[in-house]
């Protein structure tokens, strides 16, 4: 199973880096995702529109 990707640039050297998360980063990633699971509603594929708001957040809900 492939790991998530980290991607960025060092602007001092101009070097761009794109690689899979290393062991430490992946462990932190898993902890974070586990902590957050269930906090959010299903993915909304389209931005909200004036005519058709989608899945409104309710008072007290953490976005």
């Amino acid at each position, binding site marked *: 199973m492939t790991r998530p990707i980290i*991607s*960025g640039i*060092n602007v001092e050297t101009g070097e761009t880096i794109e690689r899979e998360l290393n062991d430490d980063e992946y462990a932190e990633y898993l902890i974070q*995702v586990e*902590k957050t699971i269930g906090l959010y509603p299903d*993915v909304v594929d389209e931005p909200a529109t004036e005519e058709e708001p989608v899945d409104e957040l309710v008072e007290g809900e953490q976005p």
Partner: protein
Amino acid sequence: MAVKTFTDNTSLPASDINTYLTNSGMTYIGAYTASATTLFIDGCFTSTYNNYFITFQSTSVTTTGSFMFKLRASGTANSTNYGYGGFQYYTTIAATAQQNASDTSMLFSAASGTSYTFNTIYVSNPAVAQPTPIMVDFVSWYSNYAGGSIRGFHNVSTAYDGFQITSNTGATITGTMRVYGIRQA
């Protein structure tokens, strides 16, 4: 204070134009656009500037969630002691408070699907080994969410040379980060 005060009917030599370009209000340092779970820019915070201005625009996320801002030193993110407070705003309900005394990041915004978000981040003295003030303002075109603002500190006395943005749901983020140094003259 102005670098020079111009008067009517005088020439504008190239040297003056160059002086203004050199001493403009903000100096572009770098940018990066990608799709990944972690987007970063390293080598952008140095002793050249005290304060920095960052813009971050995202065009999609694979899972609904909020963004996480972390400081980086020598390629490694610090994930402790981000203390902040602020508000989230909505178009149909009252604002809600958001605060944390010691989080793993500065948590900000809300993004879902192809909702566009625009975020600005001020960072003060990140390259100095002292607690780092961070201010984040954000707008998100998502449901009835309007955006918000949070202010706080990274309460660790470490010098940093970069930053990263991730999602708290582990989403792949598509976006562009730009960083500028704020002129000190």
